[in-house]
């Protein structure tokens, strides 16, 4: 009755009837866990027929750290710092998901200043994440220069984090009940300067890569993911919007102060790599626009409403809340037994784990070079896949 438990060896078998007019032989090849295009330790078993991809089998677990299990032994406040380490390019949104989950469960109301700070930082982080992605996409497609430009421009944004928070990547900043530090006195000035800089660089990105005929050839009609497939495969974030579903939690279920700002959701129409590329580039512009609207209007107020040393005990129940990271919907299932200050069970619905499986649907029939473009256009962060 129950399905047989299989192993990877059962999975890698050539198909009986290769789908090719020539008398060819299918073969398997390991892409990763150490491969320049898989950005970390993603391992893909590829079934290839020449250069044509027949199947992509992701093999996970190379950076599985059991964060959900570790969370069961930590208090809610301590758990926040672990979420920095799942999707390290959206560390603040990950913090925020836990913080908001705890706040909703305990019925804590935050003030406007906290929500403004959180929203601004989340958007700045989205820009820096997309900038890094832009550079990496360039490198995956063979242009090394965008990679360095992306990293260079991202530095101005991580400097903002370092000034206020003290860290650049894994920040542990947004906490249940507030944020860890108040804003640095230079924050507004520095952020405005960085936004102006980013704007000018976005124009340069357009010239260097977006309009480039080779990039267009490499991305157009490559890795098409239809809207139906994207929804059924649980794809969220920019890949989902590139397929034409304008589902952005910042619009649909606004949190923070997203309901008070004016911005547009970037969507695609076909769902190919080009749409995913363009959606992300446009999101950078929209994020700059969001921060520009907020940066001058940060209200006064306290930035931490819960005493840091106080125990947080959540009433018994199952709590789910979700947010839009740079890669998609990050959800958190928080189960509390109502007695301890530690979660009974904590589950993170990571956007990358769910987006990853669309890779097979996108890449079948394409070339090896298309697979690299597809991996890149999904913007996978492997620690978030494995958790």
């Amino acid at each position, binding site marked *: 009755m129950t399905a047989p438990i299989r192993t990877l060896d059962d*999975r890698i078998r050539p198909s009986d009837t290769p789908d090719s007019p020539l008398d060819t032989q299918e073969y398997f090849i390991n892409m990763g866990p150490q491969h320049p295009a898989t950005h970390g330790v993603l391992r893909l078993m590829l079934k290839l027929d020449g250069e044509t991809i027949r199947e992509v089998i992701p093999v996970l677990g190379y950076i599985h750290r059991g964060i959900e299990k570790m969370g069961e032994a930590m208090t809610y406040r301590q758990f926040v710092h672990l979420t920095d380490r799942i999707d390290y390019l959206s560390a603040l949104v990950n913090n925020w998901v836990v913080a908001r989950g705890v706040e909703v469960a305990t019925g804590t109301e935050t003030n406007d200043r906290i929500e403004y700070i959180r929203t601004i930082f989340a958007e700045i982080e989205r820009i820096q994440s997309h900038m890094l992605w832009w550079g990496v996409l360039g490198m995956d497609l063979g242009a090394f220069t965008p990679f360095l430009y992306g990293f260079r421009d991202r530095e101005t944004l991580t400097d903002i984090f370092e000034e206020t928070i003290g860290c650049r990547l894994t920040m542990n900043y947004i906490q249940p009940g507030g944020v860890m530090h108040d804003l640095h006195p230079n924050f507004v000035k520095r952020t405005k300067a960085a936004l102006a800089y980013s704007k000018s660089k976005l124009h340069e990105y357009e010239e260097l890569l977006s309009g480039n005929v080779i990039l267009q050839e490499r991305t157009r009609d490559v890795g098409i993911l239809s809207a139906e497939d994207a929804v059924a495969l*649980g794809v969220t974030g920019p890949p989902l919007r590139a397929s034409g579903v304008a589902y952005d939690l910042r619009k649909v279920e606004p949190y923070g102060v997203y309901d008070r700002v004016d911005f547009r959701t970037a969507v695609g129409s076909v769902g190919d790599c080009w749409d995913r590329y363009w959606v992300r580039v446009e999101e950078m512009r929209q994020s700059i626009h969001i921060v520009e609207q907020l940066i001058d209007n940060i209200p006064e107020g306290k930035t931490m409403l819960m005493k840091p040393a106080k125990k947080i005990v959540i009433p018994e*129940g*199952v709590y789910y809340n979700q947010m839009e990271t740079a890669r998609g919907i990050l959800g958190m299932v928080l189960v509390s037994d109502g007695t301890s200050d530690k979660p009974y069970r904590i589950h993170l619905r990571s956007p990358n784990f769910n987006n990853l499986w669309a890779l097979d649907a996108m890449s079948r029939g394409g070339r090896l070079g298309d697979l690299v473009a597809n991996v890149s256009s999904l913007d996978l962060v492997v620690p978030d896949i494995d958790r």
Partner: protein
Amino acid sequence: MTDADVPSPDEPAEPTPRNPLIEALIASSYGVTDDPLSGSNPGVRVPVENLYDLLAHLRSEPSLAFNCLLSHTAVDRPADGTIELLYVLQSLSTGQRLLVTCPVNRDNASAPTVCGLWPIAEWQEREVFDLFGVTYEKHPDLRRVFLDDDWRGYPLRKDYQDDFMLTPDEPKQ
């Protein structure tokens, strides 16, 4: 097919269902009960016999159209002897969200697969199988997803023990 106008005879009197959706589901024939613990989200509990039918109904009913399985996970409850399977359903067309909880027997945890309804369930169920040991009937590719194929035990169960596990009070060597 919500049979809202045909009340089931064995329906216990619910204290003010929060949501018309839950009300309709409770009134249907899937043995659904309201989940009082589901926080701010609407949530229902369903016995495992009716799990697939309920989810298929939620997926296919045009007025519900839960077309996205956002998350599928489990909670180990050794005190009850059950593992609760949790399905977080989201409708991208209506914006509704529903938490479906389904307790299964802990010693022989098994549930029907919902791969046919949402393809992503294939991998989410693999994750639950990997970490909780819940086997899914008719799953096309049931194997571990994070851990090695020859890993013993299911780490997210509360009674999982390993040689290298630390206790919080003892600094590691």
